[in-house]
Protein backbone atom coordinates (compact mmCIF):
# COMPACT_ATOMS: atom_id res chain seq x y z
CA UNK A 1 0.00 0.00 0.00
CA UNK A 2 1.16 3.56 -0.69
CA UNK A 3 2.87 4.99 2.44
CA UNK A 4 0.75 8.16 2.23
CA UNK A 5 -2.45 6.07 2.31
CA UNK A 6 -1.07 4.10 5.28
CA UNK A 7 -0.30 7.39 6.98
CA UNK A 8 -3.81 8.72 6.38
CA UNK A 9 -5.31 5.47 7.68
CA UNK A 10 -3.05 5.82 10.70
CA UNK A 11 -4.37 9.32 11.36
CA UNK A 12 -7.96 8.06 11.05
CA UNK A 13 -7.22 5.19 13.48
CA UNK A 14 -5.63 7.67 15.86
CA UNK A 15 -8.71 9.91 15.80
CA UNK A 16 -10.96 6.89 16.38
CA UNK A 17 -8.85 5.87 19.40
CA UNK A 18 -9.06 9.45 20.69
CA UNK A 19 -12.85 9.34 20.38
CA UNK A 20 -12.80 5.97 22.14
CA UNK A 21 -11.25 7.68 25.17
CA UNK A 22 -7.85 5.97 24.88
CA UNK A 23 -5.23 8.23 26.50
CA UNK A 24 -3.77 10.40 23.73
CA UNK A 25 -0.18 9.40 24.50
CA UNK A 26 -0.93 5.67 24.50
CA UNK A 27 -2.91 6.00 21.25
CA UNK A 28 -0.05 7.86 19.52
CA UNK A 29 2.49 5.22 20.60
CA UNK A 30 0.21 2.37 19.53
CA UNK A 31 -0.64 3.81 16.10
CA UNK A 32 2.98 4.85 15.58
CA UNK A 33 4.15 1.34 16.43
CA UNK A 34 1.59 -0.40 14.19
CA UNK A 35 2.11 1.99 11.26
CA UNK A 36 5.90 1.87 11.46
CA UNK A 37 5.76 -1.93 11.77
CA UNK A 38 3.56 -2.20 8.68
CA UNK A 39 5.78 0.08 6.57
CA UNK A 40 9.26 -0.77 7.82
CA UNK A 41 9.08 -4.08 9.67
CA UNK A 42 7.82 -5.38 13.02
CA UNK A 43 11.20 -6.06 14.55
CA UNK A 44 12.37 -2.51 13.77
CA UNK A 45 9.09 -1.14 15.09
CA UNK A 46 9.31 -2.92 18.47
CA UNK A 47 12.89 -1.74 18.79
CA UNK A 48 11.87 1.83 17.87
CA UNK A 49 9.04 1.81 20.41
CA UNK A 50 11.19 1.04 23.42
CA UNK A 51 14.37 2.86 22.35
CA UNK A 52 12.41 6.01 21.43
CA UNK A 53 10.50 6.05 24.71
CA UNK A 54 13.64 5.37 26.76
CA UNK A 55 15.72 7.97 24.94
CA UNK A 56 13.00 10.63 25.02
CA UNK A 57 12.27 10.11 28.72
CA UNK A 58 15.99 10.31 29.50
CA UNK A 59 16.45 13.35 27.26
CA UNK A 60 18.17 16.04 29.38
CA UNK A 61 16.61 19.10 27.64
CA UNK A 62 13.15 17.75 28.55
CA UNK A 63 14.09 18.08 32.21
CA UNK A 64 13.14 21.75 31.91
CA UNK A 65 9.48 20.67 31.75
CA UNK A 66 9.63 18.61 34.94
CA UNK A 67 11.36 21.35 36.90
CA UNK A 68 9.17 24.24 35.71
CA UNK A 69 6.04 22.18 36.42
CA UNK A 70 7.43 21.47 39.87
CA UNK A 71 8.10 25.19 40.36
CA UNK A 72 4.40 25.91 39.66
CA UNK A 73 3.28 23.17 42.06
CA UNK A 74 5.52 24.43 44.86
CA UNK A 75 4.40 28.02 44.19
CA UNK A 76 0.79 26.90 44.61
CA UNK A 77 1.54 24.93 47.78
CA UNK A 78 3.49 27.89 49.15
CA UNK A 79 0.36 30.05 49.06
CA UNK A 80 1.76 32.50 46.53
CA UNK A 81 -1.56 32.69 44.73
CA UNK A 82 -3.27 34.04 47.86
CA UNK A 83 -0.65 36.74 48.37
CA UNK A 84 -0.68 37.66 44.68
CA UNK A 85 -4.44 38.04 44.66
CA UNK A 86 -4.50 40.00 47.90
CA UNK A 87 -1.85 42.40 46.61
CA UNK A 88 -3.48 42.75 43.19
CA UNK A 89 -6.76 43.51 44.93
CA UNK A 90 -5.18 46.31 46.95
CA UNK A 91 -3.44 47.70 43.86
CA UNK A 92 -6.70 47.67 41.88
CA UNK A 93 -8.37 49.43 44.80
CA UNK A 94 -11.51 51.35 44.02
CA UNK A 95 -11.39 51.22 40.24
CA UNK A 96 -14.56 49.82 38.62
CA UNK A 97 -14.76 46.02 38.68
CA UNK A 98 -11.70 46.13 40.94
CA UNK A 99 -11.86 42.47 42.00
CA UNK A 100 -12.08 41.29 38.38
CA UNK A 101 -9.10 43.50 37.52
CA UNK A 102 -7.26 42.10 40.54
CA UNK A 103 -8.02 38.57 39.34
CA UNK A 104 -6.52 39.31 35.93
CA UNK A 105 -3.42 40.89 37.47
CA UNK A 106 -3.03 37.98 39.88
CA UNK A 107 -3.35 35.48 37.01
CA UNK A 108 -0.63 37.35 35.10
CA UNK A 109 1.56 37.37 38.20
CA UNK A 110 1.02 33.68 38.85
CA UNK A 111 1.65 32.94 35.18
CA UNK A 112 5.15 34.27 35.73
CA UNK A 113 5.89 31.36 38.07
CA UNK A 114 3.59 28.69 36.64
CA UNK A 115 3.35 27.50 33.06
CA UNK A 116 -0.09 25.92 32.99
CA UNK A 117 -3.45 27.53 32.20
CA UNK A 118 -5.47 25.06 34.26
CA UNK A 119 -3.20 25.46 37.29
CA UNK A 120 -3.34 29.26 37.03
CA UNK A 121 -7.14 29.29 36.70
CA UNK A 122 -7.60 26.77 39.53
CA UNK A 123 -5.13 28.46 41.85
CA UNK A 124 -6.34 32.03 41.45
CA UNK A 125 -9.94 30.89 41.06
CA UNK A 126 -9.96 29.29 44.50
CA UNK A 127 -8.94 32.59 46.06
CA UNK A 128 -10.76 35.10 43.88
CA UNK A 129 -14.10 33.45 43.16
CA UNK A 130 -15.41 33.48 46.76
CA UNK A 131 -14.36 37.14 47.05
CA UNK A 132 -16.10 38.15 43.81
CA UNK A 133 -19.25 36.31 44.82
CA UNK A 134 -19.13 37.93 48.26
CA UNK A 135 -19.06 41.38 46.63
CA UNK A 136 -22.03 40.53 44.39
CA UNK A 137 -20.30 39.97 41.05
CA UNK A 138 -22.48 38.10 38.61
CA UNK A 139 -21.56 34.42 38.40
CA UNK A 140 -21.18 34.62 34.64
CA UNK A 141 -18.77 37.54 34.82
CA UNK A 142 -16.67 36.18 37.69
CA UNK A 143 -16.29 32.61 36.39
CA UNK A 144 -15.73 33.71 32.78
CA UNK A 145 -13.12 36.21 33.92
CA UNK A 146 -11.11 33.64 35.90
CA UNK A 147 -11.31 30.96 33.19
CA UNK A 148 -10.05 33.44 30.58
CA UNK A 149 -7.43 35.15 32.73
CA UNK A 150 -6.05 31.73 33.67
CA UNK A 151 -5.19 31.20 30.02
CA UNK A 152 -2.44 33.85 30.37
CA UNK A 153 -0.52 31.06 32.13
CA UNK A 154 0.75 29.65 28.85
CA UNK A 155 1.75 32.98 27.32
CA UNK A 156 3.87 34.53 30.06
CA UNK A 157 7.02 32.48 30.77
CA UNK A 158 7.58 29.83 32.00
CA UNK A 159 5.08 28.19 29.66
CA UNK A 160 4.88 24.42 29.21
CA UNK A 161 3.51 24.80 25.68
CA UNK A 162 6.44 27.03 24.66
CA UNK A 163 8.85 24.45 26.08
CA UNK A 164 7.20 21.58 24.23
CA UNK A 165 7.02 23.60 21.00
CA UNK A 166 10.67 24.60 21.41
CA UNK A 167 11.73 20.98 21.87
CA UNK A 168 9.65 19.74 18.93
CA UNK A 169 10.96 22.44 16.58
CA UNK A 170 14.47 22.80 18.06
CA UNK A 171 13.92 26.49 18.78
CA UNK A 172 15.54 28.36 21.65
CA UNK A 173 13.28 28.12 24.72
CA UNK A 174 14.73 31.44 25.91
CA UNK A 175 13.64 33.15 22.68
CA UNK A 176 10.16 31.63 22.91
CA UNK A 177 9.83 32.72 26.54
CA UNK A 178 10.96 36.25 25.60
CA UNK A 179 8.51 36.27 22.69
CA UNK A 180 5.60 35.56 25.04
CA UNK A 181 6.25 38.41 27.47
CA UNK A 182 5.01 41.39 25.45
CA UNK A 183 1.86 39.66 24.09
CA UNK A 184 1.24 38.44 27.66
CA UNK A 185 1.34 42.01 28.98
CA UNK A 186 -0.81 43.27 26.07
CA UNK A 187 -3.35 40.51 26.72
CA UNK A 188 -3.47 41.41 30.40
CA UNK A 189 -4.24 45.02 29.44
CA UNK A 190 -6.83 43.90 26.87
CA UNK A 191 -8.52 41.70 29.50
CA UNK A 192 -8.64 44.62 31.93
CA UNK A 193 -10.13 46.85 29.22
CA UNK A 194 -12.67 44.10 28.48
CA UNK A 195 -13.74 43.98 32.11
CA UNK A 196 -14.04 47.76 32.23
CA UNK A 197 -16.00 47.78 28.96
CA UNK A 198 -18.42 45.08 30.14
CA UNK A 199 -18.88 47.01 33.36
CA UNK A 200 -19.32 50.36 31.56
CA UNK A 201 -21.87 48.91 29.14
CA UNK A 202 -23.80 47.64 32.13
CA UNK A 203 -24.01 44.09 30.82
CA UNK A 204 -22.94 42.64 34.13
CA UNK A 205 -22.75 43.37 37.80
CA UNK A 206 -19.20 44.09 38.81
CA UNK A 207 -18.98 46.46 41.79
CA UNK A 208 -15.89 48.49 42.61
CA UNK A 209 -13.46 47.26 45.21
CA UNK A 210 -12.50 48.89 48.48
CA UNK A 211 -10.27 51.98 48.50
CA UNK A 212 -6.72 51.54 49.85
CA UNK A 213 -4.16 54.17 50.78
CA UNK A 214 -0.91 54.61 48.86
CA UNK A 215 0.95 53.12 51.83
CA UNK A 216 -1.29 50.03 51.76
CA UNK A 217 -0.54 49.66 48.07
CA UNK A 218 3.19 49.92 48.71
CA UNK A 219 2.91 47.31 51.46
CA UNK A 220 0.93 45.10 49.08
CA UNK A 221 3.75 45.36 46.54
CA UNK A 222 6.33 44.56 49.22
CA UNK A 223 4.40 41.40 50.16
CA UNK A 224 4.91 40.00 46.66
CA UNK A 225 8.45 41.27 46.19
CA UNK A 226 9.82 37.80 46.85
CA UNK A 227 7.64 36.31 44.09
CA UNK A 228 8.96 38.96 41.71
CA UNK A 229 12.47 38.11 42.88
CA UNK A 230 11.82 34.42 42.17
CA UNK A 231 10.77 35.30 38.61
CA UNK A 232 13.82 37.53 38.12
CA UNK A 233 16.15 34.92 39.58
CA UNK A 234 14.75 32.09 37.49
CA UNK A 235 13.50 33.48 34.17
CA UNK A 236 15.54 36.70 34.35
CA UNK A 237 18.71 34.74 35.08
CA UNK A 238 18.06 32.65 32.01
CA UNK A 239 17.57 35.75 29.82
CA UNK A 240 20.76 37.27 31.22
CA UNK A 241 22.66 34.13 30.31
CA UNK A 242 23.49 33.20 33.90
CA UNK A 243 22.25 29.69 33.34
CA UNK A 244 20.51 27.33 30.93
CA UNK A 245 16.68 26.89 30.85
CA UNK A 246 17.09 23.62 32.80
CA UNK A 247 19.12 25.32 35.49
CA UNK A 248 16.65 28.24 35.56
CA UNK A 249 13.84 25.76 36.14
CA UNK A 250 15.78 24.01 38.92
CA UNK A 251 16.55 27.32 40.61
CA UNK A 252 12.87 28.31 40.25
CA UNK A 253 11.63 25.06 41.82
CA UNK A 254 14.09 25.34 44.70
CA UNK A 255 13.26 29.04 45.10
CA UNK A 256 9.51 28.38 45.31
CA UNK A 257 10.22 25.68 47.90
CA UNK A 258 12.44 27.96 49.98
CA UNK A 259 9.87 30.80 49.84
CA UNK A 260 7.18 28.38 51.02
CA UNK A 261 9.36 27.39 53.97
CA UNK A 262 10.25 31.01 54.82
CA UNK A 263 6.58 32.01 54.84
CA UNK A 264 5.76 28.89 56.93
CA UNK A 265 3.10 27.98 54.39
CA UNK A 266 4.59 24.66 53.38
CA UNK A 267 3.74 21.73 55.65
CA UNK A 268 5.14 18.26 54.94
CA UNK A 269 1.74 17.21 53.61
CA UNK A 270 1.50 20.20 51.27
CA UNK A 271 5.07 19.62 50.15
CA UNK A 272 4.54 15.97 49.24
CA UNK A 273 1.13 16.66 47.69
CA UNK A 274 2.69 19.37 45.52
CA UNK A 275 5.59 17.11 44.56
CA UNK A 276 3.21 14.28 43.60
CA UNK A 277 0.95 16.66 41.67
CA UNK A 278 3.95 18.06 39.83
CA UNK A 279 5.20 14.55 39.12
CA UNK A 280 1.86 13.46 37.65
CA UNK A 281 1.61 16.54 35.42
CA UNK A 282 5.21 16.07 34.29
CA UNK A 283 4.57 12.40 33.62
CA UNK A 284 1.53 13.24 31.49
CA UNK A 285 3.49 15.77 29.40
CA UNK A 286 6.62 13.64 29.11
CA UNK A 287 4.63 10.58 28.03
CA UNK A 288 2.89 12.74 25.43
CA UNK A 289 6.24 13.90 24.06
CA UNK A 290 7.80 10.44 24.08
CA UNK A 291 4.78 8.80 22.43
CA UNK A 292 4.44 11.66 19.93
CA UNK A 293 8.02 10.94 18.95
CA UNK A 294 7.05 7.34 18.01
CA UNK A 295 4.09 8.66 16.04
CA UNK A 296 6.34 11.28 14.43
CA UNK A 297 8.71 8.55 13.19
CA UNK A 298 5.74 6.80 11.60
CA UNK A 299 4.62 10.04 9.95
CA UNK A 300 8.14 10.61 8.62
CA UNK A 301 8.21 7.24 6.84
CA UNK A 302 4.75 7.89 5.36
CA UNK A 303 6.26 11.05 3.74
CA UNK A 304 3.06 12.94 4.62
CA UNK A 305 4.86 16.00 6.12
CA UNK A 306 7.09 16.35 3.03
CA UNK A 307 4.15 15.82 0.67
CA UNK A 308 2.06 18.31 2.60
CA UNK A 309 4.78 20.93 2.11
CA UNK A 310 4.83 20.28 -1.63
CA UNK A 311 1.04 20.34 -1.82
CA UNK A 312 0.84 23.62 0.08
CA UNK A 313 3.52 25.19 -2.15
CA UNK A 314 1.40 24.30 -5.17
CA UNK A 315 -1.70 25.94 -3.70
CA UNK A 316 -2.68 29.20 -5.38
CA UNK A 317 -3.02 30.93 -2.05
CA UNK A 318 -0.94 33.73 -0.51
CA UNK A 319 1.06 32.78 2.59
CA UNK A 320 -1.29 34.69 4.86
CA UNK A 321 -4.20 32.67 3.45
CA UNK A 322 -2.41 29.42 4.28
CA UNK A 323 -1.58 30.75 7.71
CA UNK A 324 -5.26 31.63 8.21
CA UNK A 325 -6.19 28.06 7.25
CA UNK A 326 -3.65 26.69 9.74
CA UNK A 327 -5.08 28.96 12.44
CA UNK A 328 -8.63 27.81 11.69
CA UNK A 329 -7.46 24.19 11.74
CA UNK A 330 -5.76 24.66 15.14
CA UNK A 331 -8.78 26.50 16.48
CA UNK A 332 -11.23 23.76 15.45
CA UNK A 333 -8.83 21.02 16.59
CA UNK A 334 -8.29 22.80 19.89
CA UNK A 335 -12.03 22.79 20.52
CA UNK A 336 -11.98 18.99 20.63
CA UNK A 337 -8.47 17.93 21.67
CA UNK A 338 -6.31 19.25 24.49
CA UNK A 339 -3.97 21.97 23.18
CA UNK A 340 -0.82 20.19 24.30
CA UNK A 341 -1.83 16.94 22.60
CA UNK A 342 -2.87 18.80 19.45
CA UNK A 343 0.47 20.57 19.23
CA UNK A 344 2.41 17.34 19.66
CA UNK A 345 0.32 15.61 17.08
CA UNK A 346 0.35 18.32 14.42
CA UNK A 347 3.59 20.32 14.75
CA UNK A 348 5.78 17.58 13.21
CA UNK A 349 3.42 17.62 10.20
CA UNK A 350 2.76 21.36 9.90
CA UNK A 351 6.15 22.74 10.90
CA UNK A 352 7.87 22.02 7.53
CA UNK A 353 5.10 24.05 5.85
CA UNK A 354 5.81 27.01 8.15
CA UNK A 355 9.52 26.86 7.35
CA UNK A 356 8.77 26.64 3.66
CA UNK A 357 6.68 29.79 3.84
CA UNK A 358 9.63 31.52 5.56
CA UNK A 359 7.65 32.38 8.66
CA UNK A 360 9.67 32.89 11.81
CA UNK A 361 9.34 29.72 13.96
CA UNK A 362 9.37 31.77 17.18
CA UNK A 363 6.55 33.97 15.90
CA UNK A 364 4.60 30.88 14.85
CA UNK A 365 5.12 29.45 18.35
CA UNK A 366 3.37 32.49 19.83
CA UNK A 367 0.55 32.20 17.27
CA UNK A 368 0.08 28.56 18.28
CA UNK A 369 0.05 29.45 21.97
CA UNK A 370 -2.53 32.20 21.35
CA UNK A 371 -4.80 29.78 19.52
CA UNK A 372 -4.30 27.27 22.34
CA UNK A 373 -5.40 29.99 24.76
CA UNK A 374 -8.59 30.48 22.80
CA UNK A 375 -9.11 26.71 22.77
CA UNK A 376 -8.91 26.38 26.56
CA UNK A 377 -12.03 28.52 26.99
CA UNK A 378 -14.11 27.48 23.98
CA UNK A 379 -16.72 24.72 24.00
CA UNK A 380 -16.94 21.79 24.03
CA UNK A 381 -13.56 20.86 25.58
CA UNK A 382 -12.47 24.24 27.12
CA UNK A 383 -10.36 22.81 29.92
CA UNK A 384 -10.21 26.05 31.95
CA UNK A 385 -13.99 26.28 31.96
CA UNK A 386 -14.21 22.77 33.43
CA UNK A 387 -11.59 23.69 36.01
CA UNK A 388 -13.72 26.67 37.11
CA UNK A 389 -16.82 24.50 37.05
CA UNK A 390 -15.00 22.28 39.56
CA UNK A 391 -14.49 25.27 41.85
CA UNK A 392 -18.01 26.66 41.33
CA UNK A 393 -20.22 23.57 40.92
CA UNK A 394 -23.38 25.67 41.30
CA UNK A 395 -22.74 27.70 38.13
CA UNK A 396 -24.09 26.09 34.93
CA UNK A 397 -21.30 25.31 32.48
CA UNK A 398 -22.98 27.27 29.68
CA UNK A 399 -22.95 30.37 31.90
CA UNK A 400 -19.18 30.05 32.36
CA UNK A 401 -18.72 29.63 28.60
CA UNK A 402 -20.88 32.70 28.03
CA UNK A 403 -18.81 34.62 30.56
CA UNK A 404 -15.66 33.96 28.54
CA UNK A 405 -17.07 35.39 25.28
CA UNK A 406 -15.99 39.04 25.85
CA UNK A 407 -12.50 37.83 26.73
CA UNK A 408 -12.42 35.66 23.60
CA UNK A 409 -12.82 38.86 21.63
CA UNK A 410 -9.73 40.28 23.36
CA UNK A 411 -7.76 37.12 22.51
CA UNK A 412 -8.82 37.30 18.86
CA UNK A 413 -7.80 40.99 18.74
CA UNK A 414 -4.35 40.07 20.07
CA UNK A 415 -4.07 37.15 17.64
CA UNK A 416 -4.84 39.50 14.75
CA UNK A 417 -2.31 41.97 16.11
CA UNK A 418 0.37 39.28 16.27
CA UNK A 419 -0.47 38.06 12.76
CA UNK A 420 -0.34 41.59 11.30
CA UNK A 421 2.56 42.94 13.41
CA UNK A 422 5.08 40.13 13.98
CA UNK A 423 7.41 42.63 15.68
CA UNK A 424 5.07 42.62 18.65
CA UNK A 425 6.42 39.12 19.24
CA UNK A 426 9.92 39.27 17.76
CA UNK A 427 11.08 42.58 19.20
CA UNK A 428 12.00 41.33 22.69
CA UNK A 429 13.74 38.09 21.60
CA UNK A 430 15.70 40.25 19.12
CA UNK A 431 16.94 42.46 21.95
CA UNK A 432 17.67 39.64 24.41
CA UNK A 433 19.24 37.28 21.83
CA UNK A 434 20.64 39.65 19.20
Amino acid at each position, binding site marked *: MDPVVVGLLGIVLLLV*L*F*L*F*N*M*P*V*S*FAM*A*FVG*FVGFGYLVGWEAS*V*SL*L*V*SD*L*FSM*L*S*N*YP*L*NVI*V*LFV*LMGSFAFAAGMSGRLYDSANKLAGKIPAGLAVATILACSGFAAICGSTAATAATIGRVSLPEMQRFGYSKRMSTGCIASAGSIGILIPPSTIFIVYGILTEQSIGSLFAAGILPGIVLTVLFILTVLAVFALGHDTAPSGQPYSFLDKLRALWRIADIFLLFVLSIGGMFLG*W*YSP*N*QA*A*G*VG*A*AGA*LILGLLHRELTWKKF*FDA*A*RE*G*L*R*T*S*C*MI*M*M*LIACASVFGKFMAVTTIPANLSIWVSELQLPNIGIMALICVFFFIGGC*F*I*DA*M*ALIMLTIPIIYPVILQMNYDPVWFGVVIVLISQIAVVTP*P*VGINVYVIKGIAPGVPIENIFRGTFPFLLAMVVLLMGVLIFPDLVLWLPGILNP
Partner: protein
Amino acid sequence: MQFIRQWATRLSIWGEWIGVGGILIMVVVTCADVLGAKLFTTPVPGSTEIISLVQVAAIVFAVAGTQRYKGHISVEMFITKMSPRIRSMVQAVTSLLGVILFSLLIYEGFQLGNRYLESGEVTATVQIPFYPFAYAFSLALVPVAVMLLVDFIEAMKKAEN
Protein backbone atom coordinates in the same frame (compact mmCIF):
# COMPACT_ATOMS: atom_id res chain seq x y z
CA MET B 1 -9.93 -9.16 40.35
CA GLN B 2 -10.18 -6.62 43.16
CA PHE B 3 -7.11 -8.17 44.80
CA ILE B 4 -5.06 -7.74 41.61
CA ARG B 5 -6.19 -4.13 41.25
CA GLN B 6 -5.29 -3.40 44.87
CA TRP B 7 -1.88 -4.98 44.30
CA ALA B 8 -1.30 -2.86 41.19
CA THR B 9 -2.54 0.24 43.03
CA ARG B 10 -0.10 -0.39 45.86
CA LEU B 11 2.73 -0.78 43.37
CA SER B 12 1.71 2.44 41.65
CA ILE B 13 1.78 4.29 45.00
CA TRP B 14 5.30 2.99 45.70
CA GLY B 15 6.22 3.97 42.16
CA GLU B 16 5.00 7.50 42.80
CA TRP B 17 7.18 7.78 45.89
CA ILE B 18 10.16 6.68 43.82
CA GLY B 19 9.16 9.32 41.26
CA VAL B 20 8.89 12.02 43.94
CA GLY B 21 12.33 11.04 45.20
CA GLY B 22 13.59 11.25 41.63
CA ILE B 23 12.31 14.76 40.92
CA LEU B 24 13.68 16.03 44.22
CA ILE B 25 17.08 14.57 43.32
CA MET B 26 16.83 16.46 40.01
CA VAL B 27 16.19 19.76 41.84
CA VAL B 28 19.05 19.14 44.29
CA VAL B 29 21.54 18.12 41.58
CA THR B 30 20.57 21.07 39.35
CA CYS B 31 20.93 23.58 42.19
CA ALA B 32 24.19 22.02 43.37
CA ASP B 33 25.45 22.23 39.79
CA VAL B 34 24.47 25.91 39.48
CA LEU B 35 25.92 26.88 42.87
CA GLY B 36 29.04 24.81 42.29
CA ALA B 37 29.62 26.30 38.85
CA LYS B 38 28.85 29.93 39.76
CA LEU B 39 30.35 30.18 43.24
CA PHE B 40 33.17 27.64 43.29
CA THR B 41 33.75 27.04 39.55
CA THR B 42 33.27 23.32 40.21
CA PRO B 43 30.01 22.06 38.67
CA VAL B 44 28.69 18.64 39.67
CA PRO B 45 30.53 16.15 37.46
CA GLY B 46 28.15 14.38 35.07
CA SER B 47 25.13 16.31 36.35
CA THR B 48 23.32 16.03 33.01
CA GLU B 49 23.87 12.25 32.96
CA ILE B 50 22.65 11.82 36.53
CA ILE B 51 19.58 13.97 35.87
CA SER B 52 18.76 12.23 32.57
CA LEU B 53 18.83 8.76 34.10
CA VAL B 54 17.00 9.78 37.27
CA GLN B 55 14.41 11.47 35.03
CA VAL B 56 13.60 8.33 33.08
CA ALA B 57 13.15 6.40 36.34
CA ALA B 58 11.03 9.14 37.95
CA ILE B 59 8.71 9.46 34.97
CA VAL B 60 8.15 5.76 34.23
CA PHE B 61 7.51 5.00 37.90
CA ALA B 62 4.83 7.72 37.83
CA VAL B 63 2.99 6.38 34.76
CA ALA B 64 0.86 3.95 36.79
CA GLY B 65 -0.01 6.56 39.41
CA THR B 66 -0.94 9.07 36.72
CA GLN B 67 -3.08 6.41 35.04
CA ARG B 68 -4.78 5.68 38.38
CA TYR B 69 -5.75 9.34 38.69
CA LYS B 70 -6.84 9.47 35.02
CA GLY B 71 -4.07 12.01 34.59
CA HIS B 72 -3.17 11.08 31.02
CA ILE B 73 -5.01 13.38 28.58
CA SER B 74 -7.94 11.72 26.86
CA VAL B 75 -11.02 12.87 24.97
CA GLU B 76 -14.09 12.06 27.09
CA MET B 77 -16.86 13.99 25.38
CA PHE B 78 -17.83 11.29 22.88
CA ILE B 79 -17.68 8.22 25.09
CA THR B 80 -20.05 9.78 27.61
CA LYS B 81 -22.71 9.94 24.88
CA MET B 82 -22.52 6.17 24.18
CA SER B 83 -24.85 3.62 25.75
CA PRO B 84 -23.32 1.80 28.76
CA ARG B 85 -22.97 -1.45 26.80
CA ILE B 86 -21.21 0.17 23.82
CA ARG B 87 -19.07 2.20 26.21
CA SER B 88 -17.95 -0.97 28.00
CA MET B 89 -17.10 -2.61 24.67
CA VAL B 90 -15.10 0.41 23.56
CA GLN B 91 -13.30 0.53 26.92
CA ALA B 92 -12.49 -3.18 26.56
CA VAL B 93 -10.93 -2.56 23.14
CA THR B 94 -8.83 0.44 24.22
CA SER B 95 -7.72 -1.35 27.41
CA LEU B 96 -6.68 -4.39 25.39
CA LEU B 97 -4.65 -2.21 23.02
CA GLY B 98 -3.04 -0.64 26.07
CA VAL B 99 -2.21 -4.09 27.48
CA ILE B 100 -0.54 -5.05 24.17
CA LEU B 101 1.41 -1.78 24.06
CA PHE B 102 2.67 -1.98 27.63
CA SER B 103 3.41 -5.72 27.45
CA LEU B 104 5.64 -5.00 24.47
CA LEU B 105 7.32 -2.15 26.34
CA ILE B 106 7.91 -4.33 29.41
CA TYR B 107 9.35 -7.19 27.34
CA GLU B 108 11.49 -4.97 25.11
CA GLY B 109 12.59 -2.83 28.05
CA PHE B 110 13.90 -6.00 29.69
CA GLN B 111 15.67 -6.96 26.46
CA LEU B 112 17.16 -3.46 26.29
CA GLY B 113 18.47 -3.93 29.85
CA ASN B 114 20.04 -7.26 28.81
CA ARG B 115 21.71 -5.59 25.82
CA TYR B 116 23.08 -2.77 27.99
CA LEU B 117 24.33 -5.31 30.55
CA GLU B 118 26.06 -7.45 27.91
CA SER B 119 27.65 -4.47 26.15
CA GLY B 120 28.61 -2.84 29.47
CA GLU B 121 27.39 0.53 28.17
CA VAL B 122 27.90 3.39 30.63
CA THR B 123 27.50 7.18 30.55
CA ALA B 124 30.43 9.18 29.19
CA THR B 125 31.51 11.23 32.22
CA VAL B 126 30.65 9.46 35.45
CA GLN B 127 30.37 5.96 34.01
CA ILE B 128 26.86 5.19 35.30
CA PRO B 129 25.69 1.88 33.80
CA PHE B 130 22.51 2.12 31.71
CA TYR B 131 21.17 -1.36 32.37
CA PRO B 132 19.61 -0.77 35.84
CA PHE B 133 17.56 2.06 34.36
CA ALA B 134 16.38 -0.06 31.42
CA TYR B 135 15.32 -2.79 33.88
CA ALA B 136 13.63 -0.13 36.04
CA PHE B 137 11.84 1.14 32.91
CA SER B 138 10.50 -2.35 32.30
CA LEU B 139 9.58 -3.03 35.93
CA ALA B 140 7.84 0.33 36.44
CA LEU B 141 5.40 -0.35 33.62
CA VAL B 142 4.19 -3.68 35.07
CA PRO B 143 1.47 -2.08 37.24
CA VAL B 144 0.22 -0.07 34.23
CA ALA B 145 -0.21 -3.25 32.17
CA VAL B 146 -1.89 -5.00 35.12
CA MET B 147 -4.29 -2.08 35.67
CA LEU B 148 -5.19 -2.06 31.97
CA LEU B 149 -5.69 -5.83 32.02
CA VAL B 150 -8.07 -5.52 34.97
CA ASP B 151 -9.86 -2.67 33.16
CA PHE B 152 -10.19 -4.93 30.10
CA ILE B 153 -11.65 -7.87 32.06
CA GLU B 154 -14.06 -5.65 33.99
CA ALA B 155 -15.19 -3.87 30.82
CA MET B 156 -15.78 -7.24 29.14
CA LYS B 157 -17.87 -8.39 32.09
CA LYS B 158 -19.90 -5.18 31.99
CA ALA B 159 -20.42 -5.53 28.24
CA GLU B 160 -21.66 -9.12 28.70
CA ASN B 161 -24.11 -8.07 31.38
